[in-house]
Protein backbone atom coordinates (compact mmCIF):
# COMPACT_ATOMS: atom_id res chain seq x y z
CA UNK A 1 0.00 0.00 0.00
CA UNK A 2 2.89 2.32 0.72
CA UNK A 3 3.95 2.00 -2.93
CA UNK A 4 1.00 4.13 -3.90
CA UNK A 5 0.91 6.95 -1.35
CA UNK A 6 -1.21 9.20 -3.55
CA UNK A 7 -3.78 6.48 -4.10
CA UNK A 8 -3.70 5.71 -0.40
CA UNK A 9 -4.48 9.33 0.48
CA UNK A 10 -7.09 9.52 -2.30
CA UNK A 11 -8.82 6.35 -1.07
CA UNK A 12 -8.78 7.42 2.57
CA UNK A 13 -10.27 10.79 1.62
CA UNK A 14 -13.00 9.03 -0.35
CA UNK A 15 -13.78 6.73 2.58
CA UNK A 16 -13.89 9.71 4.93
CA UNK A 17 -16.19 11.51 2.51
CA UNK A 18 -18.54 8.52 2.29
CA UNK A 19 -18.54 8.16 6.08
CA UNK A 20 -19.35 11.84 6.51
CA UNK A 21 -22.04 11.70 3.83
CA UNK A 22 -23.61 8.75 5.57
CA UNK A 23 -23.44 10.30 9.02
CA UNK A 24 -24.76 13.68 7.88
CA UNK A 25 -27.46 12.16 5.69
CA UNK A 26 -26.29 13.60 2.39
CA UNK A 27 -28.14 12.60 -0.75
CA UNK A 28 -28.21 13.53 -4.41
CA UNK A 29 -32.01 13.90 -4.38
CA UNK A 30 -33.36 17.04 -6.00
CA UNK A 31 -34.94 18.92 -3.13
CA UNK A 32 -35.46 22.65 -3.02
CA UNK A 33 -34.85 24.26 0.35
CA UNK A 34 -36.98 27.29 1.25
CA UNK A 35 -36.73 29.53 4.27
CA UNK A 36 -39.33 31.41 6.25
CA UNK A 37 -42.42 29.57 5.06
CA UNK A 38 -45.26 31.42 6.83
CA UNK A 39 -46.94 29.63 9.69
CA UNK A 40 -50.29 30.29 8.02
CA UNK A 41 -49.58 27.45 5.60
CA UNK A 42 -50.45 25.12 8.45
CA UNK A 43 -54.00 26.51 8.44
CA UNK A 44 -54.24 27.31 4.74
CA UNK A 45 -52.24 24.76 2.73
CA UNK A 46 -53.54 26.16 -0.56
CA UNK A 47 -51.72 29.45 0.08
CA UNK A 48 -48.36 27.72 -0.34
CA UNK A 49 -46.90 27.81 -3.82
CA UNK A 50 -44.69 24.84 -4.44
CA UNK A 51 -41.46 25.35 -6.34
CA UNK A 52 -42.42 22.30 -8.40
CA UNK A 53 -46.05 23.28 -9.05
CA UNK A 54 -45.31 24.45 -12.60
CA UNK A 55 -42.83 21.64 -13.25
CA UNK A 56 -43.25 20.28 -16.75
CA UNK A 57 -44.10 16.62 -16.74
CA UNK A 58 -44.73 14.02 -19.40
CA UNK A 59 -48.28 12.79 -19.27
CA UNK A 60 -48.20 10.27 -22.08
CA UNK A 61 -48.10 6.54 -21.67
CA UNK A 62 -47.55 3.36 -23.57
Amino acid sequence: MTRHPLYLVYGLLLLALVGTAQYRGWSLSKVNELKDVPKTVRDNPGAYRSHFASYFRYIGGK
Partner: protein
Amino acid sequence: MASGGPSGQVVLTRGLNCPNCGAALTMRAAGHSLTIVCEHCHSVLDAKDENYKILSHFETRMQFEPLIPLGSRGRLSGVVWEVIGVQVRTIEVDGTPYSWSEHLLFNPYHGFRYLTHYQGHWNFVRTVHALPVSSMSMGKQAVVFQNQTFTHFQTATAETTFVLGEFPWEVQVGDTNEVRDYIAPPRMMSSEATAEEITWSLGHYTPAAEITQAFKLSPLPPPEGVFADQANPYAAKSQGIWGTFGVFLIALIVLAFSSLAMSAKKEILSQDYSFHRGQGEPSFVTEPFELAGRTSTVELAVDTDVNNNWAYFNFALINEETGKAYDFGREISFYRDSEGSEGSRNDATIIPSVPPGRYYLRVEPETPDSAYDLHYHITLRRDVPVFTFFWLALAALAIPPIMMHWRSTAFEGRRWMESDYAPASALTSSSGDDE
Protein backbone atom coordinates in the same frame (compact mmCIF):
# COMPACT_ATOMS: atom_id res chain seq x y z
CA MET B 1 50.26 -5.19 -19.40
CA ALA B 2 50.25 -8.83 -18.43
CA SER B 3 47.78 -10.62 -16.22
CA GLY B 4 46.27 -14.01 -15.64
CA GLY B 5 43.48 -14.98 -18.03
CA PRO B 6 40.31 -16.98 -17.34
CA SER B 7 42.18 -20.22 -17.80
CA GLY B 8 45.42 -19.06 -16.31
CA GLN B 9 46.70 -17.82 -19.63
CA VAL B 10 48.75 -14.65 -19.73
CA VAL B 11 46.81 -11.79 -21.22
CA LEU B 12 48.77 -9.25 -23.16
CA THR B 13 47.86 -5.83 -24.36
CA ARG B 14 50.21 -4.97 -27.15
CA GLY B 15 50.60 -2.66 -30.05
CA LEU B 16 51.00 -3.66 -33.68
CA ASN B 17 50.62 -2.29 -37.14
CA CYS B 18 48.11 -3.34 -39.73
CA PRO B 19 49.97 -5.34 -42.38
CA ASN B 20 47.63 -3.88 -45.02
CA CYS B 21 47.60 -0.13 -44.29
CA GLY B 22 50.23 0.19 -41.59
CA ALA B 23 47.86 1.86 -39.12
CA ALA B 24 48.59 1.33 -35.44
CA LEU B 25 46.40 -1.30 -33.77
CA THR B 26 46.05 -2.34 -30.14
CA MET B 27 45.50 -5.95 -29.06
CA ARG B 28 43.53 -5.80 -25.83
CA ALA B 29 42.87 -9.48 -25.32
CA ALA B 30 45.97 -11.03 -26.78
CA GLY B 31 45.88 -14.77 -26.31
CA HIS B 32 42.08 -14.81 -26.41
CA SER B 33 41.23 -13.07 -29.64
CA LEU B 34 41.14 -14.99 -32.93
CA THR B 35 40.65 -11.98 -35.19
CA ILE B 36 41.29 -8.29 -35.08
CA VAL B 37 39.73 -5.80 -37.46
CA CYS B 38 41.65 -2.73 -38.55
CA GLU B 39 39.44 0.29 -38.04
CA HIS B 40 41.18 2.18 -40.83
CA CYS B 41 41.18 -0.21 -43.78
CA HIS B 42 38.72 -2.84 -42.43
CA SER B 43 41.13 -5.70 -42.93
CA VAL B 44 40.30 -8.72 -40.81
CA LEU B 45 43.57 -10.05 -39.38
CA ASP B 46 44.43 -13.44 -37.90
CA ALA B 47 45.27 -12.62 -34.29
CA LYS B 48 46.87 -16.05 -33.76
CA ASP B 49 49.29 -15.59 -36.61
CA GLU B 50 52.54 -13.96 -35.61
CA ASN B 51 52.51 -11.86 -38.80
CA TYR B 52 48.79 -10.99 -38.44
CA LYS B 53 47.90 -12.55 -41.76
CA ILE B 54 45.04 -10.81 -43.55
CA LEU B 55 42.06 -13.16 -43.50
CA SER B 56 39.65 -10.95 -45.38
CA HIS B 57 38.78 -7.40 -46.16
CA PHE B 58 35.43 -5.73 -46.33
CA GLU B 59 34.21 -2.57 -47.96
CA THR B 60 31.56 -0.61 -46.17
CA ARG B 61 29.75 2.64 -46.67
CA MET B 62 28.43 2.44 -43.15
CA GLN B 63 29.67 5.26 -40.99
CA PHE B 64 29.49 3.69 -37.59
CA GLU B 65 30.85 5.24 -34.44
CA PRO B 66 30.52 2.97 -31.38
CA LEU B 67 28.58 4.61 -28.55
CA ILE B 68 31.16 3.13 -26.20
CA PRO B 69 34.60 3.62 -27.78
CA LEU B 70 36.99 0.68 -28.06
CA GLY B 71 39.24 0.49 -25.02
CA SER B 72 36.63 2.01 -22.69
CA ARG B 73 36.42 0.37 -19.30
CA GLY B 74 33.40 0.20 -17.06
CA ARG B 75 32.12 -1.73 -14.06
CA LEU B 76 29.00 -3.81 -14.60
CA SER B 77 27.74 -6.43 -12.14
CA GLY B 78 30.77 -5.68 -9.97
CA VAL B 79 33.31 -6.54 -12.69
CA VAL B 80 35.46 -4.18 -14.74
CA TRP B 81 34.99 -4.81 -18.47
CA GLU B 82 36.88 -3.41 -21.40
CA VAL B 83 35.30 -2.85 -24.79
CA ILE B 84 37.48 -4.72 -27.28
CA GLY B 85 35.21 -5.08 -30.29
CA VAL B 86 31.99 -3.88 -31.84
CA GLN B 87 29.86 -5.48 -34.48
CA VAL B 88 26.70 -4.28 -36.17
CA ARG B 89 24.10 -6.83 -37.11
CA THR B 90 21.13 -6.31 -39.37
CA ILE B 91 17.87 -8.05 -40.02
CA GLU B 92 15.41 -7.28 -42.76
CA VAL B 93 11.67 -7.16 -42.18
CA ASP B 94 9.36 -6.48 -45.12
CA GLY B 95 12.30 -5.11 -47.05
CA THR B 96 13.34 -2.69 -44.32
CA PRO B 97 16.70 -3.25 -42.62
CA TYR B 98 16.98 -2.90 -38.84
CA SER B 99 20.40 -2.81 -37.23
CA TRP B 100 21.70 -3.10 -33.70
CA SER B 101 25.20 -3.01 -32.29
CA GLU B 102 26.96 -5.48 -30.04
CA HIS B 103 29.86 -4.26 -27.94
CA LEU B 104 32.20 -7.11 -27.03
CA LEU B 105 33.47 -6.79 -23.46
CA PHE B 106 36.45 -8.57 -22.00
CA ASN B 107 37.79 -9.20 -18.54
CA PRO B 108 40.82 -11.47 -18.18
CA TYR B 109 39.28 -13.26 -15.18
CA HIS B 110 35.68 -13.45 -16.34
CA GLY B 111 36.00 -13.82 -20.10
CA PHE B 112 33.64 -12.22 -22.58
CA ARG B 113 30.31 -10.45 -22.31
CA TYR B 114 28.25 -8.39 -24.74
CA LEU B 115 26.44 -5.10 -24.50
CA THR B 116 23.78 -4.95 -27.17
CA HIS B 117 22.22 -1.66 -28.13
CA TYR B 118 19.13 -0.82 -30.15
CA GLN B 119 17.43 2.58 -30.17
CA GLY B 120 18.55 3.49 -26.66
CA HIS B 121 17.87 0.04 -25.19
CA TRP B 122 20.78 -1.91 -23.73
CA ASN B 123 21.23 -5.54 -22.74
CA PHE B 124 24.13 -7.04 -20.81
CA VAL B 125 24.57 -10.48 -22.32
CA ARG B 126 26.55 -13.59 -21.50
CA THR B 127 26.69 -16.89 -23.31
CA VAL B 128 25.36 -19.86 -21.39
CA HIS B 129 26.54 -23.42 -21.59
CA ALA B 130 23.53 -25.19 -20.09
CA LEU B 131 20.79 -25.85 -22.61
CA PRO B 132 17.32 -24.48 -21.90
CA VAL B 133 14.39 -26.89 -22.10
CA SER B 134 11.72 -26.44 -24.77
CA SER B 135 8.29 -25.60 -23.46
CA MET B 136 5.08 -23.71 -24.26
CA SER B 137 3.82 -20.48 -22.72
CA MET B 138 0.64 -18.55 -23.55
CA GLY B 139 0.22 -20.70 -26.66
CA LYS B 140 3.67 -19.73 -27.89
CA GLN B 141 6.93 -21.61 -28.04
CA ALA B 142 9.03 -21.13 -24.94
CA VAL B 143 12.17 -22.30 -23.23
CA VAL B 144 12.76 -22.88 -19.54
CA PHE B 145 16.10 -21.84 -18.11
CA GLN B 146 16.98 -21.60 -14.42
CA ASN B 147 13.34 -22.34 -13.57
CA GLN B 148 12.21 -19.32 -15.55
CA THR B 149 10.03 -19.55 -18.64
CA PHE B 150 11.05 -17.44 -21.60
CA THR B 151 8.35 -16.89 -24.22
CA HIS B 152 9.25 -16.83 -27.89
CA PHE B 153 9.30 -13.29 -29.23
CA GLN B 154 10.94 -13.23 -32.60
CA THR B 155 12.92 -15.27 -35.10
CA ALA B 156 15.01 -13.56 -37.77
CA THR B 157 18.10 -14.03 -39.88
CA ALA B 158 20.78 -11.61 -38.74
CA GLU B 159 23.67 -10.59 -40.92
CA THR B 160 26.91 -9.10 -39.64
CA THR B 161 27.23 -5.78 -41.46
CA PHE B 162 30.11 -4.06 -39.67
CA VAL B 163 32.94 -5.15 -37.40
CA LEU B 164 35.62 -3.32 -35.48
CA GLY B 165 38.27 -4.45 -32.96
CA GLU B 166 38.95 -7.92 -31.62
CA PHE B 167 36.83 -11.03 -31.53
CA PRO B 168 37.29 -14.48 -30.06
CA TRP B 169 35.93 -16.02 -33.25
CA GLU B 170 36.70 -15.61 -36.92
CA VAL B 171 34.45 -12.69 -37.60
CA GLN B 172 33.32 -11.98 -41.16
CA VAL B 173 31.13 -9.26 -42.53
CA GLY B 174 28.31 -11.10 -44.28
CA ASP B 175 28.10 -13.88 -41.68
CA THR B 176 24.48 -14.88 -41.10
CA ASN B 177 22.76 -16.63 -38.19
CA GLU B 178 19.22 -17.53 -37.40
CA VAL B 179 18.48 -15.65 -34.19
CA ARG B 180 15.59 -16.69 -31.93
CA ASP B 181 14.68 -14.44 -29.03
CA TYR B 182 12.72 -15.60 -25.99
CA ILE B 183 11.72 -13.13 -23.30
CA ALA B 184 10.98 -13.06 -19.59
CA PRO B 185 11.40 -9.31 -18.92
CA PRO B 186 13.82 -8.01 -17.89
CA ARG B 187 15.70 -11.04 -19.22
CA MET B 188 15.99 -12.46 -22.69
CA MET B 189 17.39 -15.73 -23.99
CA SER B 190 18.65 -15.83 -27.54
CA SER B 191 19.80 -18.70 -29.67
CA GLU B 192 22.05 -18.13 -32.63
CA ALA B 193 22.17 -20.99 -35.06
CA THR B 194 24.66 -21.62 -37.83
CA ALA B 195 24.94 -24.77 -39.90
CA GLU B 196 27.39 -26.12 -37.32
CA GLU B 197 26.19 -25.02 -33.91
CA ILE B 198 23.64 -23.29 -31.75
CA THR B 199 24.81 -20.79 -29.16
CA TRP B 200 22.58 -19.68 -26.32
CA SER B 201 22.96 -16.38 -24.52
CA LEU B 202 21.19 -14.73 -21.64
CA GLY B 203 20.65 -10.98 -21.66
CA HIS B 204 19.56 -8.68 -18.90
CA TYR B 205 17.92 -5.35 -19.77
CA THR B 206 20.14 -2.57 -18.46
CA PRO B 207 19.00 1.06 -18.35
CA ALA B 208 21.07 3.48 -20.42
CA ALA B 209 21.80 5.52 -17.29
CA GLU B 210 23.56 2.51 -15.79
CA ILE B 211 25.73 2.13 -18.91
CA THR B 212 26.51 5.86 -18.87
CA GLN B 213 27.57 5.69 -15.25
CA ALA B 214 29.53 2.46 -15.65
CA PHE B 215 31.63 3.68 -18.59
CA LYS B 216 31.61 7.35 -17.55
CA LEU B 217 30.08 8.44 -20.86
CA SER B 218 28.24 11.56 -21.83
CA PRO B 219 24.47 10.93 -21.77
CA LEU B 220 23.46 8.18 -24.18
CA PRO B 221 20.47 8.48 -26.52
CA PRO B 222 17.17 7.98 -24.67
CA PRO B 223 15.21 4.78 -25.35
CA GLU B 224 12.66 4.82 -28.14
CA GLY B 225 9.60 2.62 -27.95
CA VAL B 226 9.39 -0.55 -25.89
CA PHE B 227 12.11 -3.17 -26.16
CA ALA B 228 11.48 -6.92 -26.15
CA ASP B 229 12.75 -7.57 -22.62
CA GLN B 230 12.21 -4.12 -21.14
CA ALA B 231 10.56 -4.49 -17.75
CA ASN B 232 7.00 -3.23 -17.69
CA PRO B 233 7.12 -0.35 -15.19
CA TYR B 234 3.34 -0.52 -14.71
CA ALA B 235 2.99 -4.27 -14.12
CA ALA B 236 4.14 -4.32 -10.49
CA LYS B 237 2.39 -1.02 -9.79
CA SER B 238 -0.79 -2.38 -11.31
CA GLN B 239 -0.73 -5.47 -9.07
CA GLY B 240 0.05 -3.39 -6.00
CA ILE B 241 -2.67 -0.85 -6.63
CA TRP B 242 -5.27 -3.60 -7.12
CA GLY B 243 -4.23 -4.95 -3.72
CA THR B 244 -4.79 -1.52 -2.18
CA PHE B 245 -8.11 -1.29 -4.01
CA GLY B 246 -9.11 -4.61 -2.41
CA VAL B 247 -8.39 -3.20 1.05
CA PHE B 248 -10.46 -0.10 0.28
CA LEU B 249 -13.26 -2.26 -1.06
CA ILE B 250 -13.39 -4.23 2.18
CA ALA B 251 -13.35 -0.98 4.15
CA LEU B 252 -16.20 0.35 2.00
CA ILE B 253 -18.26 -2.80 2.54
CA VAL B 254 -17.64 -2.64 6.29
CA LEU B 255 -18.69 1.02 6.24
CA ALA B 256 -21.85 0.18 4.29
CA PHE B 257 -22.86 -2.61 6.68
CA SER B 258 -22.07 -0.41 9.69
CA SER B 259 -24.19 2.33 8.23
CA LEU B 260 -27.00 -0.12 7.57
CA ALA B 261 -26.82 -1.49 11.10
CA MET B 262 -26.62 1.90 12.78
CA SER B 263 -29.37 3.62 10.80
CA ALA B 264 -32.56 4.01 12.83
CA LYS B 265 -34.97 3.70 9.84
CA LYS B 266 -37.64 4.87 12.24
CA GLU B 267 -41.15 5.14 10.85
CA ILE B 268 -42.53 8.62 11.54
CA LEU B 269 -45.72 8.65 9.51
CA SER B 270 -47.78 5.98 7.79
CA GLN B 271 -51.15 7.11 6.46
CA ASP B 272 -53.69 6.30 3.69
CA TYR B 273 -55.18 9.08 1.58
CA SER B 274 -57.42 9.47 -1.44
CA PHE B 275 -57.89 12.20 -4.01
CA HIS B 276 -60.54 13.09 -6.53
CA ARG B 277 -59.80 15.99 -8.79
CA GLY B 278 -62.25 18.88 -8.73
CA GLN B 279 -63.52 18.30 -5.22
CA GLY B 280 -62.22 21.36 -3.41
CA GLU B 281 -58.65 22.34 -2.44
CA PRO B 282 -56.33 19.46 -3.30
CA SER B 283 -53.55 20.38 -0.86
CA PHE B 284 -53.51 19.48 2.81
CA VAL B 285 -51.05 19.15 5.67
CA THR B 286 -50.42 16.28 8.04
CA GLU B 287 -50.37 16.44 11.81
CA PRO B 288 -47.01 17.67 13.15
CA PHE B 289 -44.45 15.01 14.02
CA GLU B 290 -41.07 14.98 15.71
CA LEU B 291 -37.85 14.20 13.82
CA ALA B 292 -35.38 13.27 16.52
CA GLY B 293 -31.68 12.50 16.59
CA ARG B 294 -28.88 14.10 14.58
CA THR B 295 -29.17 15.79 11.21
CA SER B 296 -29.99 12.90 8.94
CA THR B 297 -32.08 11.67 6.04
CA VAL B 298 -35.84 11.39 5.76
CA GLU B 299 -37.33 8.93 3.29
CA LEU B 300 -40.73 9.64 1.82
CA ALA B 301 -42.41 6.66 0.15
CA VAL B 302 -45.67 6.82 -1.82
CA ASP B 303 -47.67 3.75 -2.82
CA THR B 304 -50.56 4.42 -5.21
CA ASP B 305 -53.17 2.52 -7.21
CA VAL B 306 -52.58 4.37 -10.52
CA ASN B 307 -53.28 2.20 -13.52
CA ASN B 308 -52.70 3.32 -17.11
CA ASN B 309 -52.47 6.79 -15.70
CA TRP B 310 -50.26 9.15 -13.76
CA ALA B 311 -50.31 11.16 -10.57
CA TYR B 312 -48.10 13.99 -9.48
CA PHE B 313 -47.38 15.08 -5.93
CA ASN B 314 -46.03 18.37 -4.68
CA PHE B 315 -44.49 17.75 -1.29
CA ALA B 316 -43.10 20.16 1.27
CA LEU B 317 -41.60 18.98 4.53
CA ILE B 318 -41.91 22.12 6.67
CA ASN B 319 -40.25 22.82 10.01
CA GLU B 320 -43.00 24.15 12.21
CA GLU B 321 -40.61 26.19 14.36
CA THR B 322 -38.13 27.67 11.84
CA GLY B 323 -40.31 27.83 8.73
CA LYS B 324 -37.67 26.03 6.69
CA ALA B 325 -39.19 23.83 3.99
CA TYR B 326 -37.89 20.98 1.86
CA ASP B 327 -39.90 21.30 -1.31
CA PHE B 328 -39.96 18.66 -4.05
CA GLY B 329 -42.25 16.99 -6.58
CA ARG B 330 -42.68 13.33 -7.48
CA GLU B 331 -44.37 11.86 -10.50
CA ILE B 332 -45.82 8.40 -10.48
CA SER B 333 -47.06 6.71 -13.64
CA PHE B 334 -47.95 3.16 -14.47
CA TYR B 335 -49.13 1.82 -17.82
CA ARG B 336 -49.89 -1.73 -18.78
CA ASP B 337 -51.16 -3.51 -21.88
CA SER B 338 -50.85 -6.91 -23.51
CA GLU B 339 -47.23 -6.24 -24.39
CA GLY B 340 -46.17 -5.53 -20.84
CA SER B 341 -45.98 -2.70 -18.38
CA GLU B 342 -44.09 0.53 -17.93
CA GLY B 343 -43.45 2.67 -14.89
CA SER B 344 -44.32 1.93 -11.29
CA ARG B 345 -47.15 2.58 -8.88
CA ASN B 346 -44.71 3.32 -6.08
CA ASP B 347 -42.01 5.86 -5.45
CA ALA B 348 -39.57 6.72 -2.71
CA THR B 349 -37.23 9.65 -2.34
CA ILE B 350 -34.66 10.79 0.18
CA ILE B 351 -34.72 14.26 1.71
CA PRO B 352 -31.09 14.91 2.65
CA SER B 353 -29.67 16.38 5.85
CA VAL B 354 -32.84 17.22 7.73
CA PRO B 355 -32.04 18.67 11.20
CA PRO B 356 -34.04 17.45 14.18
CA GLY B 357 -37.20 19.37 15.00
CA ARG B 358 -40.96 19.45 14.74
CA TYR B 359 -42.23 19.14 11.18
CA TYR B 360 -45.36 18.66 9.16
CA LEU B 361 -45.81 17.54 5.59
CA ARG B 362 -47.74 19.48 2.98
CA VAL B 363 -49.13 17.28 0.19
CA GLU B 364 -50.65 18.49 -3.05
CA PRO B 365 -51.72 15.65 -5.36
CA GLU B 366 -52.53 16.13 -9.01
CA THR B 367 -54.13 13.83 -11.59
CA PRO B 368 -54.88 14.34 -15.31
CA ASP B 369 -58.66 14.15 -15.05
CA SER B 370 -61.48 13.68 -12.65
CA ALA B 371 -62.43 10.28 -14.01
CA TYR B 372 -60.87 8.28 -11.25
CA ASP B 373 -60.19 8.29 -7.55
CA LEU B 374 -56.57 8.15 -6.58
CA HIS B 375 -55.78 6.15 -3.48
CA TYR B 376 -52.33 6.39 -2.02
CA HIS B 377 -50.30 5.68 1.08
CA ILE B 378 -47.53 7.90 2.43
CA THR B 379 -44.77 6.61 4.68
CA LEU B 380 -42.07 8.78 6.26
CA ARG B 381 -38.97 7.22 7.79
CA ARG B 382 -36.18 8.93 9.67
CA ASP B 383 -32.45 8.10 9.26
CA VAL B 384 -32.54 5.82 6.23
CA PRO B 385 -29.13 4.81 4.79
CA VAL B 386 -28.28 6.05 1.29
CA PHE B 387 -26.00 3.84 -0.74
CA THR B 388 -25.46 6.16 -3.72
CA PHE B 389 -22.21 7.47 -2.27
CA PHE B 390 -20.91 3.94 -1.75
CA TRP B 391 -21.37 3.19 -5.45
CA LEU B 392 -19.82 6.51 -6.42
CA ALA B 393 -16.88 5.87 -4.10
CA LEU B 394 -16.46 2.38 -5.50
CA ALA B 395 -16.34 3.79 -9.03
CA ALA B 396 -13.93 6.55 -7.98
CA LEU B 397 -11.69 4.04 -6.18
CA ALA B 398 -11.61 1.79 -9.24
CA ILE B 399 -10.49 4.52 -11.65
CA PRO B 400 -6.76 4.63 -10.70
CA PRO B 401 -6.28 0.81 -10.76
CA ILE B 402 -8.15 0.56 -14.06
CA MET B 403 -5.98 3.32 -15.53
CA MET B 404 -2.82 1.63 -14.24
CA HIS B 405 -3.97 -1.70 -15.66
CA TRP B 406 -4.71 -0.03 -18.97
CA ARG B 407 -1.23 1.52 -19.08
CA SER B 408 0.34 -1.82 -18.25
CA THR B 409 -1.66 -3.54 -20.98
CA ALA B 410 -0.81 -0.79 -23.46
CA PHE B 411 2.90 -1.20 -22.61
CA GLU B 412 2.67 -4.94 -23.30
CA GLY B 413 0.80 -4.20 -26.51
CA ARG B 414 3.64 -1.95 -27.69
CA ARG B 415 6.17 -4.64 -26.73
CA TRP B 416 4.45 -7.42 -28.67
CA MET B 417 3.77 -5.10 -31.58
CA GLU B 418 7.46 -5.58 -32.41
CA SER B 419 7.31 -9.37 -32.23
CA ASP B 420 6.42 -12.15 -34.62
CA TYR B 421 3.00 -12.13 -32.95
CA ALA B 422 2.02 -8.56 -33.81
CA PRO B 423 -1.52 -8.23 -35.18
CA ALA B 424 -1.62 -8.31 -38.97
CA SER B 425 -3.01 -4.76 -39.05
CA ALA B 426 0.00 -3.50 -37.10
CA LEU B 427 2.39 -5.12 -39.54
CA THR B 428 0.80 -3.40 -42.50
CA SER B 429 0.23 -0.02 -40.88
CA SER B 430 3.55 0.48 -39.12
CA SER B 431 7.07 -0.03 -40.24
CA GLY B 432 7.77 -1.96 -37.02
CA ASP B 433 11.03 -2.11 -35.17
CA ASP B 434 13.03 -5.19 -34.56
CA GLU B 435 15.85 -5.87 -32.30
